[in-house]
């Protein structure tokens, strides 16, 4: 199970983020197709894809001579959970802050 820092670290790189972003929009693509977006070598693209797979964000399957990559939703679910929990914590705080400001007398 990938941990959250690994997910964050994997997505914090501009090339890797662009790869995930493109796969979210276009579905499934080969390493070759993905590499065309960037001015970097095929091994470098391959390394980025490896890090994303390691983090559980991408899955790969073989079809004919190609390896096709797509986004693994489960790999992003921890991220979504984290964001939801943070949002709820601060929403509650904001509500209570609003009451506290009102209850602590007139503004000066």
């Amino acid at each position, binding site marked *: 199970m990938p*941990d*959250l*820092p690994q997910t*964050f670290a994997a*997505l*914090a790189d*501009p090339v890797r*983020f*662009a790869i*995930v*972003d493109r796969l*979210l*929009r276009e579905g499934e693509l080969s390493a070759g197709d993905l590499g065309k977006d960037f001015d970097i070598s095929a091994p470098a693209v391959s390394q980025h894809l490896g890090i994303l797979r390691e983090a559980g964000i991408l899955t790969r399957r073989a079809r004919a001579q190609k390896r096709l990559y797509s*986004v693994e*939703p*489960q790999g*992003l*679910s921890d*991220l*979504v959970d*984290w*964001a939801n929990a*943070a*949002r*709820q*914590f*601060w*929403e*509650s*705080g*904001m*509500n*209570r*802050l*609003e*009451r*506290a*400001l009102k209850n*602590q007398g007139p*503004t*000066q």
Partner: protein
Amino acid sequence: MIDVTLTRRFDAPPTRVFAFVTQPDMLALWWGHDGWSIEEAELDFTRPGPWFAKMRSDEGNPFHHGGEVLSTGDMTVTFSWQWLNANGRQSDVSTVTFSVTADGDGSLFTIHHTGLPDDDFGRSHEMGWNASLARLTAFASTQSS
């Protein structure tokens, strides 16, 4: 979404709102979820250094978190954040920034909470990353539900 941003308008001047979100006695009035109580805390965002809060939910579950106040400025403060369990084991470190700005005769209070380290976060904005994250979140939500 990798980072969470909330902004709310309050009908009070910025200096007053900023006091409420940085000074210990005032932070204690609103910190945490509804129904949670603070059992012990060092909630002081007026100076660099450690902070923590030991809380208990209305169901009796303990919640302990803390971190380090990283920088304080004019109407802004940044601190690290992590959940701690009974054994002192720590969750992932994230970063929170509070900022207060004037809005007419009131104030806007913004909370920015990000799982990314500071350096990466600045860069993420240049990449126009928020729109993409919205897409990513929507995708993950539909797939996992």
